């Protein structure tokens, strides 16, 4: 088990109800971490119900849900970006 900082943005932040939290996890991959979060509470299960509509960054680099967490300190979940 180790600690990781988890960040939420945009409607994901609103559905989960907080912008970030420190999570204790045994997850090997981003997808494993999502499973752990989904199992916590209904609002997480709802927020993460459709991964195709979400993006993820590990230590501020975009990645995919099958990426290993390795030594990442920060994982961020958010909807597709709408900059510019």
């Amino acid at each position, binding site marked *: 088990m180790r600690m990781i900082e988890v*960040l939420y*943005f945009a409607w994901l932040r609103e559905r989960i109800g907080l912008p970030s939290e420190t999570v204790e996890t045994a997850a090997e991959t981003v997808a494993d971490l999502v499973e752990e979060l989904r199992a916590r509470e209904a609002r997480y299960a709802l927020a993460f119900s459709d991964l195709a509509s979400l993006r993820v960054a590990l230590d501020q680099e975009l990645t995919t849900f099958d990426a290993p967490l390795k030594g990442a300190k920060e994982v961020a979940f958010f909807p597709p970006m709408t*900059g510019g």
Partner: protein
Amino acid sequence: MVVRVQSAPFDPAGAIGGFATGCKRVGAIVTFTGIVRDLSGSPLKKMRIEHYPGMTEKAIMAMVDTATQRWSLRDCLVIHRYGDLEPGDTIMMVATATAHRSDAFAAAEYLMDYLKSRAPFWKKEITDQGARWVTAKDDDEAALGRW
């Protein structure tokens, strides 16, 4: 190469003037300015832009580095606001300076396409009817394919 992510308003003409003055041995400068406008049916009161501090600057700088290599940019400026904006406010701007005109255009379009879909900003439209998150367009994602 300058990237600024800020909540403060800025004057695009002033920024363009400063950028152009600093450019030496350049033949072409292209700028893009994005402005808040009414997109939705009911009149827009505010455009609220959320971002991911830290990642935003890194992601934009990586795009600028790629553009600099690929189109031999002599100089480049990106300014992008976050926070609450009103219709008519400038959201962001990009400026590219090159020897040849086609490179300046290509680099500016590349940066715009990537800023749209790969820089961690999220827009929320606030009207009298309520608020809604702007959804990413398939077109914007598809636009990346041309690079």
